[in-house]
């Protein structure tokens, strides 16, 4: 068609101006309907802050379990027939294994001394003619090498059981170990909750945009009549979705951090009572970015679905 007298607009410049227009329009639209905007943002923020704070709780519990002093140890009880020197040699050989961080030899004589010092046992020990205690090797595994600590601990224990000098292997699975196990389950639960609440955010945004589209149906039809493309019509709604997601995400971060800082004094007091240097940790830069990205993305998807439905349902070709 003859359009020679039209000024040539470069496609990228046209696109840029379309985006600018859509941004301006969507922002002013949010601003115009402040009450409903805040309600929507609050709904999104609450839905997002729940998984975010659960995640934060988990992270903090994890740092508790990451304490190096709490690394579990394995006690190896040496057979009675093995001499102290043989036990020491075995200890040195074990030290070479890559899974093992360090080995401490506790000879039976030393163990007996320790026992004597525990009140109540001294007399009992006097009645025995010979030291009934075995030599013990206390093995500290290399936690860094471990993917699934629990699994690898049992594997290592089984390997250690195979040495001829060793009578009994006892793992000191402490509360840390158990907590780790629980945390792994909790992590999955948080993931599931995040997924469900993410879906909620998607629905909230999708529905808000849908209402938005419906209230501007006339405008959309007119825009189509005068030659607007589908993407031109879709764009301001997509931006609205981004704003809902992004601002809702920011609001949820504010909520999470307010809650967090209200907890800090209490936690510090508790940690002091237990003589721990534990400090509550925030979400961190990466997680913050991740939450904002995810919420914006949910906004885009929600808006896309809402507008897409309308664009398809319209009667115009």
């Amino acid at each position: 068609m003859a359009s020679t007298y039209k000024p040539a607009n470069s496609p990228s410049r046209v696109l840029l101006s379309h985006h600018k227009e859509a941004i301006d329009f969507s922002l002013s639209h949010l601003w115009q309907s402040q009450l409903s905007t805040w309600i929507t943002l609050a709904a999104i923020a609450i839905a997002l802050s729940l998984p975010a704070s659960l995640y934060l709780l988990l992270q903090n519990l994890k740092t508790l379990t990451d304490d190096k002093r709490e690394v579990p140890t394995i006690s190896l009880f040496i057979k009675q027939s093995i001499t102290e020197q043989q036990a020491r040699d075995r200890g040195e050989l074990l030290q070479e294994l890559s899974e093992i961080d360090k080995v401490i030899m506790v000879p039976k004589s030393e163990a007996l001394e320790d026992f004597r010092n525990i009140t109540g046992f001294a007399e009992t020990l006097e009645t025995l003619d010979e030291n009934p205690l075995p030599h013990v090797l206390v093995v500290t595994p290399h936690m860094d090498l471990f993917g699934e600590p629990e699994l690898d601990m049992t594997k290592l224990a089984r390997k250690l059981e195979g040495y001829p000098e060793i009578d009994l292997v006892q793992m000191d699975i402490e509360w840390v170990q158990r907590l780790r196990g629980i945390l792994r389950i909790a992590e999955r639960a948080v993931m599931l909750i995040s997924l469900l609440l993410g879906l909620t955010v998607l629905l909230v945004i999708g529905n808000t945009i849908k209402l938005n589209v419906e209230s501007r149906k006339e405008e959309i039809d007119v825009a189509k009549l005068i030659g607007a493309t589908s993407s031109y019509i879709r764009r301001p709604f997509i931006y609205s979705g981004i704003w809902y997601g992004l601002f809702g995400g920011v609001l949820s971060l504010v909520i999470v951090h307010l809650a967090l800082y209200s907890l800090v004094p209490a936690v510090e007091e508790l940690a002091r009572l237990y003589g721990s240097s534990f400090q509550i940790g925030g979400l961190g830069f990466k997680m913050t970015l991740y939450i904002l990205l995810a919420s914006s993305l949910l906004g885009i998807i929600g808006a896309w679905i809402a507008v897409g439905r309308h664009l398809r349902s319209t009667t115009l070709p």
Partner: protein
Amino acid sequence: MIEFKAVSKQYPTGQLALYNVNLSMQQGEMAFLTGHSGAGKSTLLKLIALLDSPSDGIVTIAGQNTQSINKRKIPAFRRNIGVIFQDHHLLKDRNVFDNIALPLKIEGMRPHDIKRRVRAALDKVDLLKKEKEYPQMLSAGEKQRVGIARAVVNKPSIILADEPTGNLDPDLALDIMHTFKQFNEYGSTVLIASHDHALIKDMKKRIIVLRKVKR
């Protein structure tokens, strides 16, 4: 520029709006489309504007069979056709300026150029003083003129108008017709549906008469 070959249009309701229409318009031509109410004038314009498709026959615009235009290209195609609708289709929540600026924004024109073009269009329909007002504050005639300004603001190759002077007093109607004539002189192909016989006779342009389909 515009060619209809044995075109018929039957609406899904069964209503036959056009039957075996043959028509040809040259580029740069100006013509009036008349006929009784219900003769199919609006339907014929819709087929040209790609707002509906024929049930039979071929509509060719600028050498393109409208039926074979890629769906994704329809918006761009439509931007080359300015349509003045019978029921003006203005946006209530935008003022006169923004309503007229819409086609230019869709084309991605610079704000500075948009301002210039919209003012020029407003000047042509004599509404410069009303650019800040909203449609509901305007009289029927003024709304009609805003619709005209919006249709011509991006200088389309084809201008279609469906009863554009229906709501105007005779003086203004004549003015508007001369404005269309001016657009035609600038190079646009203009087709105006109207049943104001006295007015279109004065214009001394080709007159196409649609006769109502008898069933």
